[in-house]
């Protein structure tokens, strides 16, 4: 990409023209199908390790990433598939990785919890709760020192929001006016612990006051609300205005991890959310009722995404395992 192309691409971001709306829908639909399919496939026992699904939270990843370019940075969580897809990671490469295959996006060495593509600005899902915010301070400082207008976004859960790393990062980013956005995806549960048990019941966004940065609460089911709040924070960061904290209130459709019995959730809790607040449903209703997009255009995307996920799973199942010599490679750059 030339500088002019990058600048041109940036100007388009934030404008929700038809192409951008279709892109956003495709992103959300791809994440949803990816996760729903993993839920099914995990139950067969074929997928190794821990898998944490992002289904229900798609509007957040799509709403933020719609404003980003390839050279902007994102640091994710253990629930990282959605951020990875929205940041442009190869869907098939991700599926191969989750199956532990040699052709995976991390060569089968990382798995679901460590999906990363540094060429895409995706600094990794993360196995350590609160691991991401210090990383975005690092790349944010780098962007500032190099004089670029890149931004860096960390996604953290409501549980992770209580980690010391998050507070330290917010303080540093604010003190140094780093081009960083701290996104808290508050899905109500830190693993199995409801938020009321782990912190006093105030909005996490209010913590921003203590660090002299803007803090807002957004409905994480509403793509348009997320997109608007994200746009404002990202614009401020690009212009040197420093960091922001955005708390997205949202729900996850599945457990903390696949296999979680979810005894801590009310009966029908998820069913009701799916009926009333599903981000894909809300998006579809809004764009079709406004006459912006035809139902058939969205249906076509649904079909294309379904085929993509089918192919990805098929290829992942058939792909070869890493060879034994790979055990000892990639520890260092030079030996």
């Amino acid at each position, binding site marked *: 990409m030339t500088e002019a192309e990058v600048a041109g691409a940036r100007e388009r971001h934030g404008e929700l023209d038809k192409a951008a709306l279709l892109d956003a829908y495709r992103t959300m639909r791809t994440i949803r199908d990816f996760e729903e399919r993993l839920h099914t496939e995990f139950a067969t026992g074929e997928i190794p390790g821990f898998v944490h699904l992002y289904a229900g939270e798609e509007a957040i990843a799509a709403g933020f990433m719609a404003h980003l370019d390839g050279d902007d940075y994102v640091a994710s969580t253990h629930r990282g598939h959605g951020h990875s897809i929205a940041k442009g990671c190869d869907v098939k490469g991700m599926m191969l990785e989750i199956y532990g295959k040699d052709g995976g996006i991390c060569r*089968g060495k990382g798995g679901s919890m460590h999906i990363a593509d540094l060429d895409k600005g995706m600094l990794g899902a993360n196995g350590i709760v609160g691991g991401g915010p210090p990383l975005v301070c690092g790349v944010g400082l780098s962007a500032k020192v190099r004089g670029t207008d890149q931004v860096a976004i960390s996604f953290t859960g409501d549980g992770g929001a209580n980690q010391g790393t998050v507070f330290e990062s917010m303080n540093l980013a604010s003190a140094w006016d780093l081009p960083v956005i701290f996104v808290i995806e508050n899905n109500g549960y830190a693993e199995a612990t409801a938020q009321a048990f782990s912190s006093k019941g105030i909005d996490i966004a209010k913590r921003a006051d203590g660090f002299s940065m803007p803090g807002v609460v957004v409905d994480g089911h509403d793509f348009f609300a997320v997109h608007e709040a994200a746009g404002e924070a990202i614009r401020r960061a690009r212009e040197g205005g420093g960091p922001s904290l955005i708390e997205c209130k949202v729900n996850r459709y599945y457990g903390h991890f696949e296999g979680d019995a979810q005894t801590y959730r009310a009966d029908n809790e998820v069913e009701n959310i799916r009926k009333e607040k599903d981000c894909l449903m809300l998006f579809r209703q809004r764009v079709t009722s406004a006459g912006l997009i035809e139902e058939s255009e969205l249906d076509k995307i649904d079909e294309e995404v379904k085929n993509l996920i089918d192919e990805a799973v098929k290829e992942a199942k058939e792909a070869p395992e890493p060879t034994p010599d790979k055990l000892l490679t990639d520890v260092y750059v030079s030996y």
Partner: protein
Amino acid sequence: MRPIAELMFVDFMGVCFDQIYNQAAKFRYMFGGKAVTPMVIRTMYGAGIRAAAQHSQALYPIFTHIPGLKVVIPSNPYDAKGLMIAAIRDDDPVIFFENKVLYAVEGDVPEEPYTIPLGEAEIVREGEDVTIVAIGRMVSMAEQAAASLADDGIEVEIVDPRTTSPLDTDTIYESIENTGRLVVVDESNPRCSLASDIVSLVTQNCFEHLKSAPQMVTAPHTPPPFSGSLEDLYVPDPEKVANAVRQTVGQGVAS
């Protein structure tokens, strides 16, 4: 108060390490023997469940390294209960390492309370040819290797230290005096590990009894991989243990 904290995966210790190694571990010494820190931190360690690099490490050498901390690593259900009660009653901070694969192992455990003193190793199997010192889950790997080696006429003695700080060096040294050969099986990475520590101690203190070079069986010097085909190669297995034993008796087998 005798707090017991459960910190899930030992890999997560990084976010609270200062409280453990600069605070809890130091209080008694820094304050001239006036402080007690009678806490137990339970934590899971070990590879084998496809949990990848940040949920599979065997980090007990890091904690064993630090004076002031006690480190317990049970290998079976009976010991887990006795060592846990001893750890709770102990006035020092204890890090209690539980191998996540061993949660599936069943064994007889009495209903009533009992303790196993911290710092007392157990001879799991008696033998006169080679001593295997095995840590935690690796005891079962050593037992499987010993069974196959016995078929070939090699009698292995297995020492389970049960705690790595304090470490029962007397039992280890006595065994070496009888066998003259040492293999240490340690699931952690090899550098600055329990394996390298025990080999070093034995070499320094039992040199005149050694008939061959001690051997270490450890994970390689890499993070734990995710892919099952690689992770299965990562954790020491009975075959690697048996090969190391054969090495010490001059029946070298390419591993």
